[in-house]
């Protein structure tokens, strides 16, 4: 089931292409990550998904109404003079939410992030981290079917990052679709079912985490006693302290390599390592930049 379909979407400002010919699909009920370095076009893309900006060309198919969508913009902002609960209820009312359910939801979420004592405080009395948590709650207070979060973890300490992550997981468990943009790869790796990585407005990677990782060569770290002879599928070995990094030929399966190795030497450790998303990200951005 498609939540959002993007077909050949482009957007330029003052003649500079910010998003160029992007196509992808977000499935219902998944957490979809949009990754990319600063200035990659993530925010512009999200603004088009939420219908604040219109694409110059291409098509966006939304299977959620605006009222059934929650949005956390990258540039955070709330009415400073308004009280926390009042603010949440006002934003819920603009989404046409049922007052009673929104109130229950707001109170539940405030409690979850340890802010239930602040419901009657003005926004200007909150710390930056607290205000950010209120803003995240504001995006989900009306229980939306689709949640779009632009850099939800930026500026949060590890404790609050975990709280927000739990809230996002909670929304997914309740059946909502979540689209989030981030440049923090470890968060994306932990949360996202599928990913789109963009650089300079263009897609550089797209698919599930496993699909993406499998496109990159795996490396094997092994410790063994003795000198192995020729091993099929092994390109070269690099000594790393007491261990060796075995660089496999492109597309080679590590299992036969292990079998051959075991027949020749005494293997103490054999570990297949996928490149981290961070490594892939850095590699892709560097390649693009080159």
């Amino acid at each position: 089931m498609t939540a959002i379909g993007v077909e050949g979407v482009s957007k330029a400002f003052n003649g500079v292409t910010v998003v160029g010919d992007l196509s992808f699909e977000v499935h219902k009920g998944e957490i979809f990550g949009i990754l990319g370095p600063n200035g990659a076009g993530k925010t512009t893309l999200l603004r088009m998904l939420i219908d604040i900006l219109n694409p110059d060309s291409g098509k966006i198919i939304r299977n959620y109404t605006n009222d059934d969508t929650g949005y956390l913009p990258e540039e955070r902002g709330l009415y400073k003079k308004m009280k926390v609960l009042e603010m949440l209820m006002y934003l819920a009312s603009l989404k046409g939410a049922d007052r009673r359910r929104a109130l229950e939801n707001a109170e539940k979420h405030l409690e979850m992030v340890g802010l239930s004592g602040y419901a009657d405080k003005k926004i200007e009395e909150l710390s930056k981290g607290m205000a950010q948590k209120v803003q995240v709650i504001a995006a989900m207070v009306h229980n939306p079917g689709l949640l779009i979060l632009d850099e939800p973890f930026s500026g949060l300490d590890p404790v609050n990052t975990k709280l927000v992550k739990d809230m996002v997981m909670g929304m997914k468990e309740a059946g909502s679709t979540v689209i989030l943009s981030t440049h923090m790869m470890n968060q994306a790796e932990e949360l996202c079912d599928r990913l789109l990585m963009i650089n300079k407005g263009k897609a550089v990677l797209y698919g599930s985490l496993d699909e993406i990782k499998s496109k990159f060569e795996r490396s094997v770290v092994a410790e063994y006693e003795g000198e192995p002879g020729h091993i099929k599928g092994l390109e070269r070995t690099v000594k790393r302290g007491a261990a060796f990094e075995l660089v496999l030929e492109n597309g080679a399966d590590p299992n036969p390599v292990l079998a051959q190795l075991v027949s020749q030497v005494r293997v103490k450790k054999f570990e297949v390592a996928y490149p981290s998303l961070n490594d892939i990200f850095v590699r892709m951005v560097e390649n693009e930049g080159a």
Partner: protein
Amino acid sequence: MKELEIAKREFLVNIRRKEFLFATFGLPVLMAGIMFASFFFTMQTADRDRTIGYVDMTGSFEFPDASIQADSRANVDSPAMPQKKVKFVEYMDNETARRDLLNRTIDGYVIIPQDYMNTGSIISYSLNSGLERPSMFVGNVLVENILRNTSPVIVERVKNPVVATDYRLDETGEIVTKGIGDYIGPFLMSLLLAFAIFTSSGFLLSGIVEEKENRIIEVLLSSVTPRQLLTGKIIGLGSLGLLQLAIWLSVAGGTGLALVVLIPLKTVAIGLLYFLLGYIFYASIMAGLGSLATTNREGQQVAGIFTLIAMVPIIVMMAILEAPESAFSVALSIIPFTSPMTVILRTTVYDVPWYELAASIIVLVLSIIATVLLMSRVFRMGLLMYGKRPTIFEIIKILRQV
């Protein structure tokens, strides 16, 4: 109705603002205070008796010791205007009179030259720079002297030749009576109208700039369309402006001011209509331009320009009141920027023909439709441009695109 939710919030938030409370309650008190103080001080200085010296070089004038004179600044014979007692002191030469003036023994003195009968000229000296001159107090005494052997009735007529009662007839031949209060009414009404329009549309402007500045605009736009946002704000703040006008009018009514300064019901009705139209017109312009501003200061500058344009009718008020049927007055009633205030001023001294009223309202309504359409597009584009102020060329480009 999301518009109503927005309207409700705008109304409730702004009604608690210090600026609103001051404009609504403080301003009438301040204005009444200033009016009372200036009246009080005028009465005090006007009530004081004067001592005027004179040097009669002709040697032929007889001055009474004292005379009661109406304040010479008042053209109308009004019982409210104070009468003051003037004491006359004769001096033989200029030097003695001057010394007494410098000692402040006298308030001023006049010299009647030898050739007075041929030239009519007299010279007067005083220490104050105000409107009052010693020469003002001697005219009647001179007339009485010159007509010494004439009947008192003729003397009185020469002193006061025209005691006028002026009537104006309306189109049916009925007499329309106008007193000075009838001019204060429209002046106050148009001033209040301007105030109400600019309090409300000023709040609209600063609200939009604030929403842009603290970035909440993006959250709002993910829930409502720019048009819904603009409509909600205009309804909410317009209701606030109506409330403000209602408070002012009922305060005026409650204190009895409305009885002294008669504001006719027709003027009130036309005033409310023009408040609504004028407010929507200015509010939509301010919203569009406010959405292009990046800081509150910039927004205020924009507001200032429009406030000045709208104030033109009050600046040229005398020209409008003296010739309410002139082409100039008609033009100001048709131009949408000035029509609300001009029409209020004109209706009170002149029966504005229905076709002129209709033309004025039609032009204003058409202008509102055009500005709302144009400005809501500018609003939509302007809202998400922040950080950088658009250049004049970019604004023109935006206007062309819409």
